């Protein structure tokens, strides 16, 4: 069952049926307790309606727009990086395939297939030693190229990041 206050709040909010509305209006007119409570709640209702809203900092809307701009620039990074990574991957896969092709074309297979395979490297193919690989000029220049490439990519990544912040 509704209390007096509950009935009066419903009346003030206008959430009761027309019949209830009429009955409560009559009670307010005739009953001193209802009248007193009604006046009290009406004042309180006005006080609640007049409450102040809090104010965010001056830079609030600017900060929101900055956050949105920074988020929008993010996808650009991934597209550029993806192409570079795919290019490097393609270069290595191609090199491995060419090397594999050369080796397989030089292999001679002799004897019956069921008696086992006699796989021998051709006499003219000599495997280089590990020390000669790492000391060769070609390898050194390859490492230098890698370092320069890494520096270039890092620099462009940082520049883009800085530009995104400043935008």
């Amino acid at each position, binding site marked *: 069952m509704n209390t007096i206050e509950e009935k009066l709040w419903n009346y003030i909010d206008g959430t009761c049926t027309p019949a209830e509305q009429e009955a409560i209006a009559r009670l307010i007119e005739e009953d001193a307790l209802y009248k007193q409570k009604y006046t009290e709640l009406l004042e309180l209702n006005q006080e609640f309606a007049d409450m102040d809203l809090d104010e965010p900092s001056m830079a609030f809307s600017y900060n*929101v727009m900055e956050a949105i701009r920074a988020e929008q620039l993010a996808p650009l990074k991934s597209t550029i990086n993806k192409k570079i990574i795919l290019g490097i991957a393609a270069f290595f896969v191609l090199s491995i395939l060419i090397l594999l092709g050369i080796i397989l074309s030089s292999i001679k297979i002799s004897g019956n297939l069921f008696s086992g395979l006699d796989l021998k490297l051709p006499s003219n193919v000599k495997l280089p030693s590990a020390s000669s690989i790492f000391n060769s000029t070609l390898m050194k220049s390859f490492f230098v190229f890698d370092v320069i490439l890494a520096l270039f990519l890092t620099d462009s990544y940082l520049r883009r990041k800085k530009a995104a912040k400043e935008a």
Partner: protein
Amino acid sequence: MQSKLSDIELIEQTLAGNQFAYADLVKRHQRFVFTLAMRFAKGREDAEEIAQDCFVKAYRSLASFQGQSKFTTWLYSIVYTTAMTFLRKKRVDTDSIDDEGTFVQVESHESAYDTNNVENKSRSYYLNQAIEQLLPDDATIITLFYKGEQSLEEIAQTMGIETNTVKVKLFRARQRLKEKLERNLKHEVKELI
């Protein structure tokens, strides 16, 4: 100076690529969104973080806003969800969210440092103080109803609950607010005597 265009017109312009239109939308609603965030965060820095996060989320999903409800109802539901997630992230579990003691601590802390007397404080000061002592859900319902121009149905949509539940919660929230307001005023009068 804020734009005189309606929320829907500003949304349309934003979707067409005009970021200034969204900035206008932010300026128009920032005070209310920030106030709602304050009901949960109890600190300006955290409240600004929540409010900012809400506007960024709203921008991201602006295209999905169908216009079937008011923009504010849609925006406030984002605020409510974000604020609830924020509370969970802050490791305040459900028990302590519902525990009024957590917020009474805020009250006693504030009153301990309060050196002004009752004559210097306006009635709205006591009202704000009492709202700060309410549970987040109670404070949110009261703020949405009185300052957000939201009907009971819209509040139900924002908070993801039944309209009748909102009605009951609003009644209880008003009762608690009234009690706290009276208690705070009595406390101040006693201190003066």
